[in-house]
């Protein structure tokens, strides 16, 4: 899968490989400590956040999980 920043795709794939291994073998088994992918993640983030700014993708200032409150079923 490609990154939104063309130059970041290789870094993204490297990080993804590391993450997927750690996620299945450590994190899901209850061992969430010691993330071995932090360096790869840092490199990848530097690249992708730059691309996001250049493309003016509006990801700033958006609350995690939307608004964090329960949405009503039928709002008019």
């Amino acid at each position, binding site marked *: 899968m490609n990154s939104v920043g063309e130059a970041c795709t290789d870094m993204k794939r490297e990080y993804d490989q590391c*993450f997927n291994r750690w996620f299945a073998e450590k994190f899901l088994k209850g061992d969430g400590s010691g993330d071995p992918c932090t360096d790869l993640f840092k490199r990848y983030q530097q690249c992708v956040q730059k691309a996001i700014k250049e493309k003016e*993708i509006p990801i700033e200032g958006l609350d995690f999980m939307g608004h964090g409150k329960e949405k009503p079923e039928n709002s008019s």
Partner: protein
Amino acid sequence: MVKYFLGHSVLRSSWDQVFAAFWQRYPNPYSKHVLTEDIVHREVTPDQKLLSRRLLTKTNRMPRWAERLFPANVAHSVYILEDSIVDPQNQTMTTFTWNINHARLMVVEERCVYCVNSDNSGWTEICREAWVSSSLFGVSRAVQEFGLARFKSNVTKTMKGFEYILAKLQGEAPSKTLVETAKEAKEKAKETALAATEKAKDLANKAATKQQQQQQQFV
């Protein structure tokens, strides 16, 4: 006015397999419309939950009538954020996904809860809710409100017009229009003024003649 969706799906795989697959599902034969995928935030909380934010870009496929109505939107892909919380201790995952552009046209929000299937612990169920909304709905309501207000004002004019013409047709002397009344009033005023001037002139003449007569007496 929001369109609401509620759905329920089952995957015949265990929760840990599903959670791991969640991060590896792109690309797949059914995701040709998904162009890019990036993790833009990730952290492990003190209580061992994984918080992530994933940025996706997807093609903006619209029917032709929508392309004609919203030409400015055609050229741009859709940016979508997917926030997720993976809780391995409780074996649940919650996601919230929504589009961050094209929002003035339409916003789709989806909230999913992944958990162990209540009938079969080797399966995973997904409870899915979605809300589809458009601010265009507000525009159409404003147009309706304005149309109704203008119509009511026109009804008032219609009834006044009716009353006017009925009175005109049923009255013994035809009642005049405002313009005719104004014209006649003007004419009448003119006549009165003329008469007054004439009278004043006449009085002045009469006074002058009398003075002459008196003066002649004292010679």
